[in-house]
């Protein structure tokens, strides 16, 4: 699967579908509380599942403003 974080793109392999919050925590070591996620261009809750064909885009919660 492809994951876009800011200007960078990462690829990870998933053998089966997995909760997005688990992908964030286990595969990317990111606290799910600090990001908003789009899956295939659409906002989704982090409880949603993604598979190897999914494209995720992460938006960090930026402090201030």
């Amino acid at each position: 699967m492809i994951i876009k974080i800011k200007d960078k793109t990462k690829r990870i392999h998933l053998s089966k579908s997995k909760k997005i919050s688990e992908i964030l925590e286990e595969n990317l070591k990111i606290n799910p509380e600090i990001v908003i996620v789009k899956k295939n261009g659409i906002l989704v809750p982090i409880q949603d599942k993604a598979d190897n064909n999914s494209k995720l885009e992460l938006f960090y919660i930026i402090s201030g403003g």
Partner: protein
Amino acid sequence: MKCKKCKNPAIIFTNNSFLCKEHFNDYFEKKLKRLVKKHNLITKKDKLALAVSGGKDSLTLLFTISKLYPENEKIVININEGIEDYREHTIDVLKEFSKKLNIPYISVSFKEEFGKTLDQIVKKIDTYPCSICGVLRRYLLNKTARKLDCTKIATGHNLDDEAQSTLMNIFNSDIERLERMGFESGIVRGEKFVRRIKPLRFHTEKEIVTYFLSNNLKTSTKECPYSKKSFRLYVRTALYEYERKHPGTNKNIINFYDKFIITALQKKQKTNTKLNECQQCKEHTSTKICKVCELIKILGLKNGTN
């Protein structure tokens, strides 16, 4: 994941429910209106100064207040601290957005008022820049709003900010700052203080960013360079860890503040607090010399308080 109310695809899980875009927007806006109504934060006669930096919280504030309170006269006030390669990006977004919403916009800078930008000020000091920036920014906001005859200043503080501030003030044993918090900043009222309200105080940062993105609002993604040096970042990171393992932590801190701390502080306030005039600038202060005048002296700034 399906929306609890209509079975359309959900965009967020919040308040123990999955919600689609439409029902989340509805929930978000109703929550704001409920807080405003319950505490009478905005009345029809109010002329509102919207304190907007151009970041996601304050742009969301601008968007929602202009949508939900169309009858009120409003003006956008931006304080330009002078942070290179950061503030200019958000100001560009803000100018365009204010124009689109047809709300007058005014920008006041540290450079004009105090003779130096924040970048120039912090070169000389060995402390958290945020503590200086906050004092000077609040002062300029109040002064500008008062000049413009605004009756309220609305800021974009959210629930996560407030939970962080509560803990920071407890860690610093800063009772004075602790007692100034709440949906309406400050407990003591003075004629020189324009009342500061926080209509987004019960909205989490996650809800705000989701609302921001789902309504196609845009801003710069740059983070303030000084936030990396801030005590807030340390507290914020810790609180998000708690939030991950114990969901609702931030909300519980705010509930605790509202139910317990604010009541205790209000009792103290009624009996103990006197509002003085600063001996130098004549603004309200709880001490003899206000914090702004202290900073002007320590940092060798131009006296913008005249």
